[in-house]
């Protein structure tokens, strides 16, 4: 480990509740709001990657979107390179968006089907007035080469490209404004294994070359293990464990992390593993259980009344390792 670099991204107490749908014409009964993000805090050092993992509906994508204010949070503080993102006006926000970009999961849905690759890449340059027309062409060629695409693809439309090529265009578009910070929201989960490896290698190269900081959002813990310096695990809108990747994978302290890790299929038929199969399903984020939100599914032998009533705080249970479990020190 090198000396801790100053955090480029700092998030504290982030909250986003979505009001429940009241049915047709708002005439339905008022229902509880969905607590998508419920007090999330983390920091990412410059040039490093934080992996944000969890299952569908845990709030990980909402966190990613609030970082760029594509969704406005209800409470909390987001600082990027010392600037308070939530205090910015429209114009300042646009300026800051040059410094941070997002790459989405679905390269089919996030590229305009009527725009060629050249038009897609030229647009951010024009919006941010980063290049003259002649200069833009040169930069587009350089960007395509940087993401491993032949410059002749500039004429292509998204439907003429494969999934991996589209995701490379999505990455090139994000890089075109020369950001410092990228939110990668499931960037490889729609791709085949062999192509996924190509894109992960590309991201690693780009991070090193451009000293980029990544928030890498994914449900695949094996992928995150390959890319993240630190990992945060979310469950029902809260971070339940946060630690440097080696510690989290070697010795998870939250029973949910342990169960998630044990459920990942291993491509080795000889692997003898103690699989923790959780019973039941994730409760609705509109009605999270009282106490520890994980207690109804928790396999911990020490689970008791306290878990049902008292929400466990996220606390340091080992050096740099935080877990929100009353019994994080006890063996599972």
């Amino acid at each position, binding site marked *: 480990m090198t000396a801790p670099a100053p955090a480029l991204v700092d998030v504290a107490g982030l909250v986003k509740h979505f009001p429940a749908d009241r049915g047709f014409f708002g005439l339905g009964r008022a229902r509880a709001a969905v607590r998508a993000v419920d007090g999330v805090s983390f920091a990412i050092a410059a040039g490093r990657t934080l992996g944000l993992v969890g*299952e*569908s509906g845990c709030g990980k994508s909402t966190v990613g979107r609030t970082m760029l204010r594509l969704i406005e949070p209800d409470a909390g503080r987001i600082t990027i390179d010392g600037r308070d993102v939530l205090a910015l006006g429209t114009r300042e926000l646009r300026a800051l968006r040059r410094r941070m970009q997002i790459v989405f999961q679905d390269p089919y849905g996030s590229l305009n089907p009527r725009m060629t690759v050249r038009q897609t890449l030229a647009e951010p340059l024009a919006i941010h007035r980063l290049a003259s027309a002649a200069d833009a062409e040169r930069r587009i060629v350089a960007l395509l080469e940087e993401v491993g695409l032949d410059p002749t693809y500039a004429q292509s439309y998204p439907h003429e490209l*494969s*999934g*991996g*090529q589209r995701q490379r265009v999505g990455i090139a578009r994000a890089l075109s404004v020369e950001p410092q910070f990228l939110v990668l929201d499931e960037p490889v989960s729609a791709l*085949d*294994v*062999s*192509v*996924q*490896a*190509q894109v*992960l*290698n590309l991201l*690693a190269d780009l991070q090193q070359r451009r000293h980029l900081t990544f928030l890498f959002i994914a*449900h*695949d*813990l*094996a*992928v995150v*293990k*390959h890319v993240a310096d630190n990992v945060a695990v979310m469950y029902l809108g809260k971070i339940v464990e946060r630690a440097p*990747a*080696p510690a989290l*994978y*070697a010795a998870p302290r939250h029973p949910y992390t342990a*169960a*998630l*890790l044990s*459920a*990942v*299929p*291993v*491509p*080795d*038929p*000889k*692997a003898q*593993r103690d*699989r923790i*199969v*959780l*019973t039941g*399903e*994730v409760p609705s984020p509109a009605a999270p259980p009282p106490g520890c939100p994980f207690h109804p599914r928790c396999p911990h032998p020490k689970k008791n009344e306290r878990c049902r009533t008292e929400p466990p705080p996220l606390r340091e249970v080992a050096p740099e390792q935080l877990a929100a479990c009353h019994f994080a020190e006890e063996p599972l």
Partner: protein
Amino acid sequence: MTEPLLRVRDLKTYFVTEHGSGTARAVDGVSFEVYPGETLGLVGESGCGKTVTSLSILRLIPEPPGHIRPGSFIEFEGRNLLTLAPRELRAIRGNRIAMIFQEPMTSLNPVFTVGDQIAEAAVVHQRLSRRAARARAIEMLKLVGIPDPDDRVDHYPHQMSGGMRQRVMIAMALVCHPKLLIADEPTTALDVTIQAQILELLDRLQRDLGMAVMLITHDLGVVAGTADRVVVMYAGEVVEQAATAELFARPLHPYTEGLLASVPRIDTRVSQVRGRLHSIPGQVPAATAWPAGCRFHPRCPYAWDRCRQEAPPPLDAGAGEPGAHTVRCWLLTEPQRRSARA
């Protein structure tokens, strides 16, 4: 060895492309067997032909644009499914052979209760009365581990979660106690903790009901944990097939080898995994224009002249009985080329 339950020989399923400009040879000469009671994993990436293979077995290929070429042969319990009359075929589908799909929401009918849908096959094939059908549906819901089955039987699909819907799909498929279950990416749309539940359920049901399962997946981890034998497909062909332990210990086709090496692993130390993943260069070719010679040669690190000109047949890897491990690769005739690269 026992007689296979299903024998697929030289299956060719082609599609006329949208503009009529060409023929997509989606499945192009596929052969394999499924034995009673075993789990066969059919593995490959998008576009390799694994789903078209499974749809061809049940003759669910829309014609046109698709057609199964003359000379193809699919034998199930001693009968060629490709020459059966529609009526005879219906007696097998959903009864002797059942299928579950990746996306349970689109395969369930939103306007019928799950009970009605589970019992439908039993009503059709076994002529159950309304009351008996309802009792059977409740019994099936219990079997697949859905809590409060007496209550859930009257629910509609939208009232259930993804994992519950997949359990309903499984209940529907198993209601007539099929001899063969074709499961096409049954856990791909599910979260990892729910995937673990469904895989465990399928494993228990298979043992209890003594059926064979053909598991179609892109996930080598899922295959390693569940399949007895594995068939690897690439570009419309079977490139390698072997017993699961043998395939993972000794992958011989360069595609299998590359695929296994590109999977991010959770079972290795972090210090060993950071850094570059192995990746297979290039991308899967289009089904309208498979490369000449070996279809993998443009992406293969070992390819030489012969690979570019001559398509290799399935060659025996000489492990166990003849045909136990076959590989469609010329390296088997010149193994020194592999060691020269390594």
